[in-house]
């Protein structure tokens, strides 16, 4: 039957290449060096207690599993590396905030086979200069990506959470 001829071709294809299912687009240390022009400050911690935990839960749509969030800050600038699940696996996203506005959003590590388009500039550039409103929403609409709704939602919620937490640090007040 004609289909059996394809089998050796498929096996040959599978043997080719060295796959990295966790796609690292930018290592976290490289992201931080870029955010702070080479000199990365020591990390500090924001504790998610009381009102902060409630706000984080409202933003993410679920209670975060972490009690502490690490960040790096200097003057009016903070950088955050946060993880949030897209469809089934976490997306590692970096957010740089300066003066209460997002300067940059970057997908650092992507672990799923669909929704990968969120890493591209056509999507992440939409977050530049965006602030958080009083009701914890972004002050500008972000267009999604067809077929990547859950990944878009995860990255958008991480951007909102980073803006909120920035306001809870000495650098954002």
């Amino acid at each position: 039957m004609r289909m059996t001829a394809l089998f050796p071709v498929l096996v040959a294809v599978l043997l080719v290449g060295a796959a990295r299912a966790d796609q690292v687009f930018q290592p976290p240390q490289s992201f931080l060096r870029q955010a702070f022009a080479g000199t990365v400050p020591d990390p500090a911690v924001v504790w998610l207690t009381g009102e902060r935990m409630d706000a984080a839960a409202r933003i993410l749509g679920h209670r975060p599993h972490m009690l502490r969030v690490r960040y790096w800050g200097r003057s009016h600038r903070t950088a955050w590396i946060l993880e949030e699940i897209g469809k089934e696996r976490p997306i590692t996203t970096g957010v740089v905030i300066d003066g209460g506005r997002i300067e940059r959003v970057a997908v650092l590590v992507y672990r799923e086979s669909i929704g990968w388009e969120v890493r591209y500039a056509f999507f992440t550039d939409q977050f530049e200069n965006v602030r958080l409103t009083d009701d914890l929403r972004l002050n500008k609409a972000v267009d999604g990506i067809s077929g990547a709704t859950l990944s878009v939602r995860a990255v958008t919620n991480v951007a909102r959470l980073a803006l909120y937490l920035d306001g809870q640090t000495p650098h954002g007040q």
Partner: protein
Amino acid sequence: MPWLALPVGLTLAMAAGLANAQPTPDEMWKMIQKQQQQIEMLRQRLEGTNKKVEATATAVEKAGTGGGAPGWWQRTSLGGYGELHYNGGDADELDYHRFVLFFGHQFNDRLRLFSELELEHALAKDTSDGSGPGEVELEQAWLEYDVTDRMSARAGLSLIPVGILNETHEPPTFYGVERNRVESNIIPTTWWEGGAGLAYKFDNGLRLDAQVHGGLDVPTTGSNAFKVRNGRQKVAKSTLRDPAYTGRVRYTGIAGVELASTLQYQADMTQGDPGDPRTNALLWEAHVDMKRAISDRATLGLRALYARWDLGGSAAAATGRDEQYGWYVEPSVRFKTGHGDVGFFARYSQDDNTAGDNTDSDFREISVGMNYWVHPNAVLKFDYQFQTPPDGQGTTRDNRANLGLGYQF
């Protein structure tokens, strides 16, 4: 005794004086040293308390994520969707149209399983004449393997990469209670087959899919002769003498926009069944799906799709089904409110399973309606259909209202 007054008075004065006396430098130095010791003790206690708090937080966070090496339950996912429909008009029917469960499993970093089991119409009975209302179907069961960062291979039973709804049809993702006529009758959604394929992702948002899989096996006589929807075999002891070849190009490199086109060829959509005429078939489909924000609370949507089959051979031509096509346009607008999202849509569609003959057999339909997303994954739906069936084809107009409840997780 007056002689006591002086010594008592002197003693009291000395006591008062002693009470107000400043400590000596020696005494002060001893006090400072004692306080220093107490400060050091408190500092060590605080350091110890901070360490315990950090350790507790770490333990709580690890417990929340399972900690340690991931067990099978952390690599296995469960999902699903469901929809309850009321169809008015001539149907007057209440139906739990679909109850679907997804099971996924990540075997390792490269290899994963997608599967989908579906119960249609709530009850599947095993009757001698097959007259039960429902069906239990395996709609997906395929493995995906990451060959490289950009290329993946798949094999198993999976959805054909064609159209808008064929791969994504969870209720909160589309307007209208029922799936539109064009994708149901022409694509024909939902269409799955057994086979294998490759997918390649470019840096600019372009994706290519190529698959070889089981083909359609259409009836060649009767009222459904050569109708594509009636050719779906569902990988249930399917006849496979002539596979089908499907290629799709899809572009999502602009935020909020999807452009895609699919081409499929099958050498014989009667699968060489004895007595059936050999009938090759070519499907071409193209669509655009756009969602663009016009404010921080409103998004405009537009879907437009065209699909066309060309069947070879004189037997299909004799029935007029050598050409089957359909198209639709669906603008929409969606608003964020304080209590979920509300969306409104209108759709004009035209489809014809017998476009190869000279009679006007287009079925035209206008649908209008709304969705209310109580939650992004749970939706209430309403629509009204204005139908214009073709004249003299035995199909009567059935304008109807439909209500639906749907969810996904």
